[in-house]
């Protein structure tokens, strides 16, 4: 009877030991994963090589210049009018490649121009394979494309949250997209007259899928 008890006790200790060992190994593995995550993206130096994190530094062209007219306001808009603003979207050399670029817009102050999603301002974004040719007098700009025009964002209400932009070259670093943002007012309702909205356009790049380096 005592021999049986001693044997059972050893078996229980062995099983318990295996469980503890497994947990310890799993914990170490989890730690390894986390360490890997951070080691990939944090500037670090070791003995043999240097691992530097990449940076996402998409930017717009020079504010107010032909490569960024987005800050130029428009007034006296009537139904049927369009507002066109050229802007370059730049992913510089040395920047990270991106999985996607989105645009988010917000209005403050807000009005029916942006809250009326049917009759209010509608937004489209187009890209030219070469720099747009800009004509017209500020702020009534017009644009023509000497290359190939592609749609980056089909017509949507002006207020968007993380609207995906298509056909962009700037998802790859060292590339610039030549864009024209067009706002149009289609509705003729009197509720749109005498209104004003200040719209902020935020372009956001999201890192590419992790890859071994």
């Amino acid at each position, binding site marked *: 009877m005592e021999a049986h008890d001693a044997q059972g006790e050893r078996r229980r200790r062995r099983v318990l030991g*295996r469980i503890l*060992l*497994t947990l310890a*190994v*799993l914990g*170490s*593995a*989890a730690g*390894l*994963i986390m360490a*890997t*995550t951070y080691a*990939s*993206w944090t500037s670090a130096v070791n003995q043999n090589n240097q691992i530097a994190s990449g*940076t*996402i*530094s*998409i*930017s*717009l062209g020079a504010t107010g210049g032909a490569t960024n007219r*987005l*800050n130029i*306001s*428009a*007034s*006296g*808009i*009537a*139904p049927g009018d369009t507002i066109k*603003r050229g802007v370059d979207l730049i992913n510089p050399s040395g920047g*990270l490649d991106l999985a996607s670029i989105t645009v988010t817009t917000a209005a403050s*102050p807000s009005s029916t*121009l942006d809250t009326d999603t049917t009759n209010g*301002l509608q937004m489209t974004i187009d890209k030219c394979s070469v720099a747009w040719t800009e004509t017209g007098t500020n702020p009534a700009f017009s644009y023509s494309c000497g290359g190939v025009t592609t749609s980056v964002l089909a017509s949507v209400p002006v207020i968007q949250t993380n609207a995906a932009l298509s056909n962009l070259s700037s998802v790859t670093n060292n590339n610039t997209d030549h864009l024209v943002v067009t*706002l149009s*007012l289609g509705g*003729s*309702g*009197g*509720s*749109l*007259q*005498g*209104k*004003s*909205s*200040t*719209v*902020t*356009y*935020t*372009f*956001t*790049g*999201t*890192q590419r*899928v*992790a*890859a*071994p380096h």
Partner: protein
Amino acid sequence: MALRYRFRVAVVVAVVVAVAWAATMAGLPGTHAVWTGSTAATDTVSTKKVFSTTLSDNFMDWIDASSGTAGAVQQSRSAYLDGVTTNTNNVLSPTFNTAYYEEMDYTGQDLPPSVAVSNVQLTFAYAVPVAAENACFYLSAIRFSDNTDLQDHGSPASTLGCVTTTTPVTFTIPLPEITNTDTLKDSFGIRVYATNSASDKIQIDTAQVSGSLMYNNGTQSYNTFTMYEFQRQSHEPAGNATPTWALGRIDGPGAVGITAVGASAFPISASYTNTDYLEFDQTPSLTFVPPGATITSSSIALTFYETLAAGNVLCPDMMLYLSGTLTATATASGANCSSSTTAETTWTVDTTAIITTPAQADNTMLRVSAINSTSAAQLRVDYVKLTVTYSLS
């Protein structure tokens, strides 16, 4: 035993490490922080204060110069704050009763649609016929087309004011519930509930509704406006009536009082005597087309008829004055002449090339002469309106 144990441990460690490596390489959600970068720009988009819109202003004041001598300006006695009053039709009750009221109806036709308004107020001035009588009032803003009560102001227990003098006293009552021209253009009315302690009438000097037209999300004013009643619906203990001003709306043919008619008949003639006329004026200080507006078209319409039985043809002649200067004339012919005492003729003259600025649109005056074919006849004018299409940046 120890060898088998070490082997098992080695297998477990190998599997776990392999899984961890695979997960890292696959970039499984939750295992990586996702970095983003943003850049932004801001601009402001503002619409026109007034989109292209077509509005009409009807001329409310007139002068009879059909004899060749101009008479006094004839104005609705309840239109302007000028001490010229009009009595209620009948005496009023000494106590309030919701069945008894004086309802002033407005059209707001010279207001653009869907424009924010502010500081809307009623200017109401009245007196009692006999000193020491005590007349009090409160009111409701209404939509008279369906009797919707928009807002009450005061009550029988808390009146807006009382008057005991024969000189009109002016009360200004804010109407903050009115925030958009659409409300003013949709059968807007003011229903005044009034009493007179002596069971007498009251004398109304004015019942104007005024305010400011706003833009930039309703934060800035680009113009002011004043509306005058085009009719009053009197509901009094002795009965109901609807006094109207001759030029307030198209409501003829009919009895004298709802049209403007000169005392003298116009002659049988082949040519006009331009010193014999009826003159039609806009309300004073009118700015129904705001300064800075771009006018794209305009016209003047005269709705009238003649006072003889069939057989006679009365043809009017327009003399258009801008800012007091005779600027253009036009002579009616054919269908623009009247040969009926029972049907009205509306003669519209295009003034697009003549009225091109807001100052001209707001300072237009019309004199109308006439000739007849078979017999001298009077000219009855029911309505004169200037219609302008404009926009305002």
